[in-house]
């Protein structure tokens, strides 16, 4: 099982490398920054989570209808819930990485906040 997983990972990495080489030749490698890759990752997690939630809703509906095959559906639901928890964990992890990359791009936080405040329009109160 572990061997199969490793093979799949290798295959995905190889495909990714090939696409990166092609992107370099096309002159768009700069577009695929770390931030962009994290965005892609977050989009993928969102998509996967949506699919999981849809599957869970289907299983719950089936469970309401099913009479004798409830046990099988229960096992499936448990497994699916575990996957959903893991997906949420992966999402949080990548959100953290995304935030770190953004912070690194901003530089000094205090200075940036001060600059943003200066850019904000000043409120003028009408005198009585």
């Amino acid at each position: 099982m572990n061997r199969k997983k490793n093979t799949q990972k290798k295959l995905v990495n190889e495909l990714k490398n090939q696409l990166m080489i092609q992107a370099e030749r096309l002159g768009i490698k700069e577009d695929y920054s770390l931030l962009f890759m994290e965005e892609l990752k977050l989009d993928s997690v969102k998509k996967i989570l949506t699919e999981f939630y849809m599957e869970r809703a289907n299983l719950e509906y089936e469970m309401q209808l099913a009479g004798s095959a409830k046990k099988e559906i229960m096992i499936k639901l448990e497994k699916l819930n575990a996957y959903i928890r893991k997906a949420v964990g992966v999402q949080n992890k990548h959100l953290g990485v995304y935030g770190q990359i953004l912070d690194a791009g901003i530089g000094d936080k205090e200075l940036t906040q001060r600059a943003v405040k200066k850019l904000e329009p000043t409120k003028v109160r009408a005198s009585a």
Partner: protein
Amino acid sequence: MSELALNIGISNGAKEYAIRKPQVAPNPQEEALIAGKQGVRESGFEWNDNGRAEYTIASKIDDAEMLLTSSATDVTARVIQSGTISAELSQELHGKFKKLFVSAYANVFSHNRLLAKVSEWMVGNVMERLALVGMSPAELEALKSQVRADLIAQNRVALQQVVYDETMLEIVG
């Protein structure tokens, strides 16, 4: 004794060929007259015989008429016909070379270095052919940018798919 009499093995046909009189070169003027009698000559000239075997050219058309006639001869008609055939052929070639160029130019950006190198040579060759068939440089540039835009879109979609698979493996695997 002639050489032929000694040569017993020679067939009758060969003998005939050997003793045949050499052909006299035809008089071009006579030939032209015969041709003139048969119909209108292509050049528009007419040969006249004054009865003393002195042939003269009698052209009854002036220069302007000659120009008109020359543009209405069979030769010109053939040129037009061959022109239409070549136009069809060039259109067909244009399409084929265009297809070849698109595939070769797409392969120039391949991750496979050997394929990319071979495609570079091929692109140069096909570009030359396309120029001969009549493709303008602007058209060629437009085709190039179109292929590049398609490849960029393909690359982005493929990367999205790969990242999706990677994430799925991270969760399920």
